[in-house]
């Protein structure tokens, strides 16, 4: 666990986390001739077109065929290459789970899946395009690492870390511009959660754009006399058990916040550790077993209580769990 990781708070700018993935690919592609990138007809929106323009010979456009894409990537990686596969989260890992499981993870070849446009913040496209189950379906597969970076810079670092890990990985990013608050100096190590704020009454474990919203929520709570820690749980698998136990002990209440179904996601991963290692109350906040709807990102996070205000209210309500 990285304590007091340095961040810009409040954020100095904004960008979409998918851009961080795209930038990292260009960086890696220039350094290593063995980096290959594949996409399924969504090169611009998943930001792989930047790599394609620079390294066209190592870019494979498979068309609208996510299952084939996973298999082709496995074949490329079996030749000693590092393959990066990019599509919307609903389609990959949504459409090609069996191929991820057997062609990639059972083969244990270095294929990194990038699911962009995840969460409700994809907005107007509606429920069919809002990936809210991707963490749950990937983290149960052996050999895979699952990452949900909080902003553009962390997405860049996560992509590079996945490359360095040299094993199957899934990285989820978002389409919308979000506050950029981590810095080049903010540490990023797979499996090590970053604590950005201390607290003694509750600890929020968040991932993706929910980290910044949780930081804002913690400010509000502080004004009301509730001391709330905020932890960026960017690695869902392997989950940082030490950090979970540490904050369970320090705060006595953990609230998890994610743009994902509460069943099977990051919150479940945290709750599994708490239940086995240091039982305390855990509130899993996110999407409660439902399909959402169209709307702007801001409207949606407000409606589903995933904005700062909503998160603050959930933390406050959850404080009652401590008294049971």
């Amino acid at each position: 666990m990285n304590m007091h990781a340095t961040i810009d708070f409040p954020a100095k700018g904004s960008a979409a986390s998918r851009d961080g993935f795209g930038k990292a690919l260009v960086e890696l592609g220039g350094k290593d001739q063995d980096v290959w990138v594949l996409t399924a007809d969504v090169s611009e929106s998943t930001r792989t077109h930047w790599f394609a323009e620079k390294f066209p010979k190592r870019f494979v456009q498979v068309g609208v065929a996510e299952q084939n894409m996973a298999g082709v990537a496995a074949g490329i990686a079996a030749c000693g290459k590092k393959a990066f596969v990019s599509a919307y989260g609903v389609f990959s890992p949504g459409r090609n789970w069996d191929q991820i499981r057997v062609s990639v993870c059972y083969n244990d070849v270095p294929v990194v899946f990038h699911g962009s446009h995840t969460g409700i913040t994809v907005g107007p496209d509606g429920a069919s395009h809002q990936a809210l189950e991707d963490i749950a379906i990937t983290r149960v597969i052996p050999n895979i690492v699952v990452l949900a970076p909080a902003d553009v810079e962390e997405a860049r670092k996560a992509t590079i870390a996945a490359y360095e890990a040299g094993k199957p990985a899934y990285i989820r990013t978002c389409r919308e511009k979000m506050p950029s608050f981590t810095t080049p100096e903010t540490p990023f190590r797979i499996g090590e959660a970053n604590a950005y704020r201390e607290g003694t009454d509750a600890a929020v474990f968040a991932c993706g754009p929910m980290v910044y919203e949780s930081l804002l929520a913690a400010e509000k709570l502080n004004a009301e006399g509730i001391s709330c820690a905020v932890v960026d749980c960017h690695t869902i698998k392997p989950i940082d058990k030490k950090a979970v136990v540490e904050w369970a002990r320090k705060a006595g209440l953990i609230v998890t916040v994610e743009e994902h179904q509460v069943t099977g996601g990051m919150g479940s991963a945290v709750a599994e550790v708490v239940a086995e290692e240091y039982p305390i109350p855990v509130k899993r906040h996110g999407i409660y077993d439902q399909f959402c709807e169209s709307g702007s990102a801001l409207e949606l996070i407000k409606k589903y209580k995933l904005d700062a205000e909503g998160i603050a209210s959930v933390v406050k309500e959850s404080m009652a769990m401590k008294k049971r």
Partner: protein
Amino acid sequence: MRITNNKQLRLIANTIREDVIKMLYEAKSGHSAGSIGLADIFTALYFNVLYHDPKNPLWADRDRLVLSNGHVCPVIYAALANAGYFPKEELLTLRKLGSRLQGHPHRGSLPGIENSSGPLGQGLSQAVGMAIVSKAERKRWRVYAVISDGEHGEGQTWEAVMLASKYKLGNLTAIMDRNNIQIDGFTEEVLPLEPLAEKYRAFGWHVIEVDGHNIHEIIDACEKSKAIYEKPTLIIAHTIPGKGIPFMEFLTEWHGKPPTQKEAEEALKLLGVERSVIEEEG
């Protein structure tokens, strides 16, 4: 090791059939018909067609063989052991606890296995990925994919067929085990696949049809496929499931079961007779 002598090749295929029977009997589960029916194709591949080195399974310039329908793995295991990848005694550990010979192949467990497989329809995509790399890097190694007919029910197979054509993968040869059976019955009853050759041609592939039990025809077709530029080749190998063991031939019920002791003994007796016939033919 490149064997051209027909008699020698037929004897190897006969040995592979014997090994498969022994393995399946010992394992008490597994897929008989497809494994036996592929003995001639795997003999052609491992003893003539492939550039490979059993003593150096990860040789960078080896030809790649991707087996897509992993349930026929007894035949690839027997071919690998006979080619010298690992000791033949190990064949009898098939499907047993602690064995490197998993019920469906696992890459990394056993030398010579290029890909994990089992769920149908996933092999051709991986072969396409390998062939794309070989072509992009101007390597000389080729990719061979053994695929089944039944797995053409999987949409992914056709996705891979299209991509191979797009990338003009002249270095890719797919060999389809056209044995006409799948678990629930005959392919043309379960989900009609014909006309397969026309379909592949329409998708931009070169198609060759061979008798999948004539080892020289298989070798010739593989050689011809090397001369086809800018197009992947499909070899439709017409095979008889269970070929060589008359009581298994053509019967869909033999798709997914092993022989009993009595059946195994009978099969080995028949293969013994076949061995002396081949030897006498000279």
